[in-house]
């Protein structure tokens, strides 16, 4: 039998893929889960959480609801904690509540939602969210896109004082309302901040991430895959062989490990509709993380693709 160059390369590629496979679902799962502490309290949080916009907005479709419950189950089984949602995401909160009820109490669950309405309507909306989630109280309540933030912050501080929630946060995405966010981080007693940061959107490195560290604010990173656009752009290119030096066996882990290896990041919240993708994403919460030199190399690599 003759082996030409193409066959040889293809065989080598599939052999290396096979070699990587047991790592992603076998060895990786036995490595310790990476957690980060919430700066204000020292409480530990797994570095990968879960987003729910679009992915969990499936309305009353019974089949999709059960499928999302499977996604949620695999999230918890892989050691996940923080689930992020918002009343803006249609039925997502209700579908999370459905899943949590079916799965039963989860010790590690860290329930995070948002308030997204005019000031006066805030308390009623938060109470409605609590009922939809089926939880006694939220671990984290965030002001979505800084909407009516002065009014909501007052309410949230009161709720926190009464032990009706544990942490307060504010969110933006895609660098919007950047200046307002900085002002809030500098002057207000918030515990968490949420914004966008990924390999192609690194603006937060300039000010938001250093400021969060200085002010002891926990950082949640949204849109870690740019809503999936990172896969569209890079996934048909080969994953560099040196990615295995920091235990990455797929692009999802490459993107996520870049984010969580920034020391100011507490948690990234990728969203998915698929159990296999959830396994990949949660795999990023284990093993080695890229060093500063390796991070530079990652940036350079994707810039050249």
């Amino acid at each position, binding site marked *: 039998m003759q082996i030409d160059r193409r066959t040889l390369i293809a065989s080598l590629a599939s052999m290396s893929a096979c070699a990587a496979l047991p790592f992603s679902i076998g060895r990786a799962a036995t490595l310790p889960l990476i957690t980060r502490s919430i700066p204000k309290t020292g409480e530990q949080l797994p570095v990968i959480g879960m987003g729910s916009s679009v992915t969990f907005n499936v309305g009353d479709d019974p089949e999709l609801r059960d499928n999302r419950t499977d996604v949620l189950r695999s999230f918890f089984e892989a050691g996940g904690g923080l689930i992020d949602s918002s009343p803006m995401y249609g*039925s997502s909160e209700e579908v999370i509540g459905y899943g949590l009820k079916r799965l039963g109490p989860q010790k590690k669950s860290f329930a995070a939602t948002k308030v997204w309405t005019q000031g006066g309507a805030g308390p009623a909306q938060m109470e409605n969210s609590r009922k939809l989630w089926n939880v006694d109280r939220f671990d984290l309540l965030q002001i979505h896109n800084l909407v009516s933030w002065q009014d909501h912050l007052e309410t949230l501080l009161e709720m926190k004082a009464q032990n009706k929630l544990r942490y307060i946060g504010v969110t933006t995405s895609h660098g919007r309302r950047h200046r307002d966010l900085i002002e809030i981080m500098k002057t207000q007693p918030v515990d968490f901040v949420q914004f966008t940061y990924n390999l192609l959107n690194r603006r937060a490195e300039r000010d938001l991430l250093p400021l969060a560290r200085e002010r002891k604010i926990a950082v949640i990173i949204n849109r870690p895959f740019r809503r999936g656009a990172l896969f569209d752009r890079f996934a048909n290119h080969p994953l560099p062989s040196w990615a295995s030096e920091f235990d990455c066996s797929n692009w999802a882990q490459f993107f996520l490990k870049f984010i969580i290896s920034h020391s100011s990041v507490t948690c990234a919240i990728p969203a998915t509709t698929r159990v296999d993708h959830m396994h990949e994403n949660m795999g990023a919460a284990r093993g080695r993380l890229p060093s500063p030199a390796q991070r530079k190399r990652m940036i350079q690599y994707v810039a050249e693709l």
Partner: protein
Amino acid sequence: MFELYDYSLSDLLLFSRETYLRLLGRYNADMWPSQIAMMILGGTLIGLVRSSKLTSDRVISVLLAAIWLWVAYGFHIERYATIQIAAKTFAVMFIIQAILLVLIGVIGVRIHFSLSGGLINRTGLGLVCLGVFVYPLAGWAAGREWGQVELFALMPDPTVVATFGFLLMTGPRPNGLLLIIPVLWTVVSGALSWEMGAYESLLAPATALLTVSLSLVQYMQSVSK
């Protein structure tokens, strides 16, 4: 409060194409076999246009109003609102259109349908046929399952397309007030379809463009007379 510049179009599309198509599939399954009745209704409306009587003008307007009301309730409120946070606003738009049809066409008797045979009038008939009979094929041709296609009197887009057609069959030109909401709807739905990658749904904005252009032509003609 909600500064719109804080949101891009993709921020406002908060469900996937799969979820949307499955919602249509479940809606169609629940409504079966009324789809056939709705096609017969569409054909009956065309027959009424042919009869060119004052009473048929009123009947067409009242039936169109009822169809817009049904889409507001049966689709927007009952179904779409489970995944689309703006669906109730869309329902209000559709209810206002139904009220306008009753006020202008039934109480005011200011809409007169006819098959005059002119180019614009025939285009109107073509749009009605497109909305009532051809529209489901567009979804199917774009790869949807049969159960997930959109139908006249059940879904907004084909209803709007057929309504454009009926309005182009009124003389001397379509009532401008009755065009506002359908055109606005095609802008919203076209933008969301674009974002979702459901390019077959761009048919509706295309018919809006055609209807507005033809109405302008009719307006210019009537001014220059």
